[in-house]
């Protein structure tokens, strides 16, 4: 009977592969001028920590299929650099105030400089992909470039969906609408892309990568929903402002659930509250919406959906990895499905 992996293997692997990726990533940060207005800002978010789940998943997948960790390192660095670049832009778009327990980059330096730093970090994320040509050969390296382009488009589309819903004050969204948005905005970069790239590197493109879409989707969606829940019920490790998603009128599963279950008069009131820009929402209004979520059981509902998705991720994991030897890397990948619920 299979045992459920303990989170220790996840923590240890994240630490090891995270440190490997951080060390490799540090070599990419320029030390030239203009340091204060650009280059120092590029390394700000990466230096604040982060879970390094994306890069670790890429390396672990590559190793699970027989590659060396170093084969996947350039790709892992590219993933982390792009992830941090998108965080800078996301924080601006969401008007967020905190990132990893510190003020966001635009809060520290202003929107114009932060935007430019995000652009530069995006450019920087391309550089390791060129170094892949020497490490994994031109055919696989080109395939990784193509995969990266696809992933970036998916992320941009998902972000556009979410921002568009907020700008147009779209309400009454279904759970399927939310999951499609999360598939694009979160899952491609967080889990689908790292898994596919890792497998591609190890098998030289000789493996059908479609199953990784399903596995990555279920894992990434469970991760995102849990992240949304943590925003409402933060633990000690949560680095963003509590209830920030309600302030930002993010169309989370919980908010959509509350809206769907509300009587018409309350729906009108909710729509009215969610319409204005973030600065116009008061703490009392946010607290009222938060109370509604408790009243309708929206947080437990979202948790249930996340648990189901995590179970589906385990199912898809078994489909992909059953033929491979049981190693620390496969245990790590499987363990992520449970770790997301008590990550520390």
């Amino acid at each position: 009977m299979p045992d459920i992996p303990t989170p220790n293997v996840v923590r240890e692997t994240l630490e090891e592969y995270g440190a490997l990726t951080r060390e490799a990533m540090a070599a990419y940060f320029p030390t030239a001028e203009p340091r204060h207005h650009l280059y120092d800002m590029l390394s700000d978010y990466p230096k604040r920590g982060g879970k390094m789940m994306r890069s670790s998943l890429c390396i672990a997948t590559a190793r699970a299929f027989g590659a060396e960790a170093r084969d996947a390192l350039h790709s892992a660095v590219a993933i982390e650099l792009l992830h941090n670049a998108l965080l800078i832009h996301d924080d601006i778009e969401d008007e967020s105030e905190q990132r990893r327990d510190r003020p966001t980059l635009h809060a520290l330096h202003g929107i114009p400089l932060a935007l430019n730093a995000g652009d530069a970090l995006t450019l920087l994320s391309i550089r390791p992909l060129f170094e892949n040509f020497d490490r994994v050969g031109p055919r696989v390296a080109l395939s990784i470039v193509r995969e990266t382009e696809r992933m970036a488009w998916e992320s941009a589309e998902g972000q556009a969906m979410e921002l568009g819903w907020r700008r147009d004050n779209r309400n009454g969204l279904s759970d399927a609408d939310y999951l499609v948005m999360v598939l694009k905005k979160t899952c491609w970069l967080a889990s689908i892309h790292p898994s596919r790239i890792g497998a591609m590197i190890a098998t030289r493109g000789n493996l059908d990568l479609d199953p990784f879409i399903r596995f990555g989707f279920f894992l990434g969606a469970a991760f995102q929903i849990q992240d949304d829940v943590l925003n409402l019920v933060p633990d000690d490790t949560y680095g963003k402002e509590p209830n920030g998603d309600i302030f930002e009128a993010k169309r989370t599963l919980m908010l959509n659930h509350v809206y769907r279950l509300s009587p018409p008069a309350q729906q009108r009131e909710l729509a009215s509250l969610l319409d204005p820009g973030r600065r116009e929402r008061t703490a009392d209004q946010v607290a009222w919406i938060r109370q509604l979520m408790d009243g309708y059981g929206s947080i437990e509902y979202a948790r249930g959906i996340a648990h189901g998705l995590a179970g589906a991720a385990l199912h898809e994991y078994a489909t992909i990895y059953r033929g491979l030897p049981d190693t620390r890397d496969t245990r790590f990948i499987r363990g992520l499905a449970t770790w997301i619920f008590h990550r520390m």
Partner: protein
Amino acid sequence: MDKPERLHRPDPPRTEPIRDFMSYMRAAGLNGVMPGGVGLSGSAVATPDQPAASGLDAAMDQTVAHGVRLGYTVIDEQIRQGEKLAERLRQVSGKPSAMPAQEIGTLIERALNIYKDMGALAVAAVETMVRSPVLQSAVAKALHPSAAPTGDGQAAAAGAHDRTSFGLELTSGRRTQVKLDIRPGAVTLMPVVHALHAANPDLPPLTGVRFRFDPATATPLLHIDVPDGQPAGTYLGVVIDSGTEEPCGTLSVRVLPNPA
């Protein structure tokens, strides 16, 4: 002549999807309890002789099952749309190019030179190249001018793009495609490969696979023995260099079904 009664497989006993998180936890004998006795929702959960906590009651199970069903509906629809789009793109990109092959080769050589000289400026060129299968083929030729076309790879060790050569000894009663992909410079001594596994875990592994030294050619010889009863499928394994004990490539063997 009377038609025999059609046989029906008995209905499965389950009425709910079994691929949800709770089922996995129960299958593991943990009954929804994480190590340390903490429930999935982060709250303390009941032990078997205690009444179930609210997070594990029937309503929660229904929500979990709903999440699984919803997730599969969403991702299957997305994949279906992706397949339709890919099919349309394939039809467009498969049309004969108006550009002669010689010109394509020149264009790619220039693009690669731009890459060597200008670094990141080659992004646009590379992106242009990767969109077209025609251009990709030309890229491969430009990068490996001595590489022979692989064809369909039937009963041949295709993909030997490095300087190491391998012989192939294949025993199979059926059409079999072999693809050996070795990283350039990764083989220092005789490579080793163990059983090859199919993506479908129910299929038995292909065990009759080994490398041996061929004194006639002084090169490694890959021996593959496909038993008659081996199910059709693609079997994949990692090749290890016995000198470094590091992975140096992959071997895939595709066993085609018997002709009807």
